[in-house]
């Protein structure tokens, strides 16, 4: 009965590789987000999708490309991984495009780039 799930939970990879993180929610929400939490614990929004359409695209390198095949899924693909990409990536979802709604977070994907 997991609400927001992410795979994989841990990801260790070499610099320069390409990797993907998958996110799925079974809450019936139509808005999904990707956040990055760095070593100082700041949680920063990267992208937001509403009904498969991109609505928020923060200043994120072009190497990061989100894809939403349907409103229950939001995947994150990262090209040419760099050391600075090491962080915890959280997927989240909420009802509606109105961001006043509370957000439900996944368990996070811990990415370590060597």
């Amino acid at each position, binding site marked *: 009965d997991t609400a*927001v799930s992410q795979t994989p939970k841990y990801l260790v990879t070499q610099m320069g590789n390409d990797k993907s993180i998958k996110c799925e929610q079974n809450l019936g929400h139509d808005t999904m987000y990707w956040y990055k939490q760095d070593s*100082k*614990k*700041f*949680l*920063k*929004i990267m992208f*937001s999708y509403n009904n498969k359409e991109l609505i*928020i695209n*923060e200043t994120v390198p072009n190497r990061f490309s989100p894809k939403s095949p349907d409103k229950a899924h939001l995947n994150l693909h990262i090209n040419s991984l760099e050391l600075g990409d090491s962080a915890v990536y*959280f997927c*989240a979802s909420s009802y509606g495009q109105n*961001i*006043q709604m*509370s*957000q*439900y*977070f*996944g*368990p*996070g994907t811990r990415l370590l780039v060597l």
Partner: protein
Amino acid sequence: SQKIEQNSEALNIQEGKTATLTCNYTNYSPAYLQWYRQDPGRGPVFLLLIRENEKEKRKERLKVTFDTTLKQSLFHITASQPADSATYLCALFSDTGRRALTFGSGTRLQVQP
């Protein structure tokens, strides 16, 4: 520049006491503010939302205040329990400009039995 500040030092209190956590912000006109709890190795969990025209919100042992003049929110946990030990994050949303939640770095609360 816009800034959200939460006490980076851990707050240690005795079980049964009231924990008070602070969230200060500058160069921001938030429409509302949310508080989340984050346990180690887990994603944040939503606790409470308070709007700019609300002074106080309560939910069971939790109470949040929002003072737009002081640019501050206080988060209280009454009759604290060891199970309340976690990191608490505040997040602000503004209706103008960047329409996204901006999170503070959180304050870690440790409740001693």
